């Protein structure tokens, strides 16, 4: 077949030509018996091919595909999303809050102890002079100003 529109016949039957191109093919078909035969053959074949039953994959394929995907390493975005999910975040939050409370309590006790130790160190001389033991924080203030208090008590 040597018709110039032969290459366009399948696209014509498929409705893939522009209006201008389709009009040109229609006009040619009206005058060309050979192309009309080819067009009929193409239409018949397309209809028969469309009627062929489709291949149906097995249900086992789904299990295999999902198992392979599940076994792949998770992307970072998904890992972060899982870490930030409410299920993972709630226990972590409780643990974090508990740790914060412990830290504050321990920190406060340590600060108080350190203040007392500093006061003892600063007044070490006085403590040895007056042979005081088992001082409470209030006693240190008394010891620190003992000389002044004595002066005030005995002018």
């Amino acid at each position: 077949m040597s018709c110039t529109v032969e290459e366009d016949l399948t696209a014509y039957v498929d409705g893939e030509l522009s209006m201008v191109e389709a009009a040109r093919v229609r006009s040619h078909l009206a005058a060309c018996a050979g192309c009309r035969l080819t067009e009929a053959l193409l239409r018949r074949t397309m209809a028969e091919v469309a009627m062929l039953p489709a291949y149906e994959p097995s249900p086992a394929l789904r299990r295999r595909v999902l198992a392979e995907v599940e076994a792949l390493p998770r992307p970072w975005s998904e890992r972060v999303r899982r870490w930030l999910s409410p299920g993972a975040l709630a226990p972590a939050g409780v643990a974090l809050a508990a740790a914060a409370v412990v830290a504050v309590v321990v920190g406060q006790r340590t600060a108080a102890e350190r203040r007392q130790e500093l006061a003892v160190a600063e007044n070490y001389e006085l403590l040895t002079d007056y042979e005081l033991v088992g001082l409470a924080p209030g006693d240190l203030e008394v010891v620190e100003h003992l000389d002044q208090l004595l002066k005030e008590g005995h002018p």
Partner: protein
Amino acid sequence: MLRVAAGDTAAFAALYDRHHRSVARFAHRFVQDAGKAEELTQDIFVKVYRHAGRYRPQARFRTFLFRVAANHCLNEVRRGEYRVAHVSDHDEEGRALEMPAPEAQSPERAVEGRELEATVAAALQRLSARERTAFALCRFEGMAYRDIAEVLSASEAAVKSLIHRATLSVARAVDAWQAGARGPARSEA
């Protein structure tokens, strides 16, 4: 698809359920073998999952999916991983392939259907891999030439030519089979 890109396997399962038949059908038309078609389908979906981040929402997902599918099938055939099988009506376990349930049609129609299937499959084997891809996407998946051009990274003019050559080739094979199989039957009637 964006959820799949973020590693959401439930979203991936939904995507699989929606599209696996098309992909398996395409792969089966490509290699003409049920076992190999399922291997290819599995590879294609795992590839889609792994490369989901490359998907751009402005592209149609079906086009993206068949681009992955066509490239994978073409590459595997090119590498010699898969050879187009000889056409058979049965898989390795003897299960009938591609045929509708026997009760759905008369025995004569069932035989004729199997022969037509075998004729089309044999004609597809004689096509180039790109012609076969374009034919399968057009005839069995109903894709427009524009989308097939995108799948094959080709111009629409090239796709038009591929589809025409493939369809005409299959049409002539079917015509020859009909002339041989139906002709004598008609004359006997």
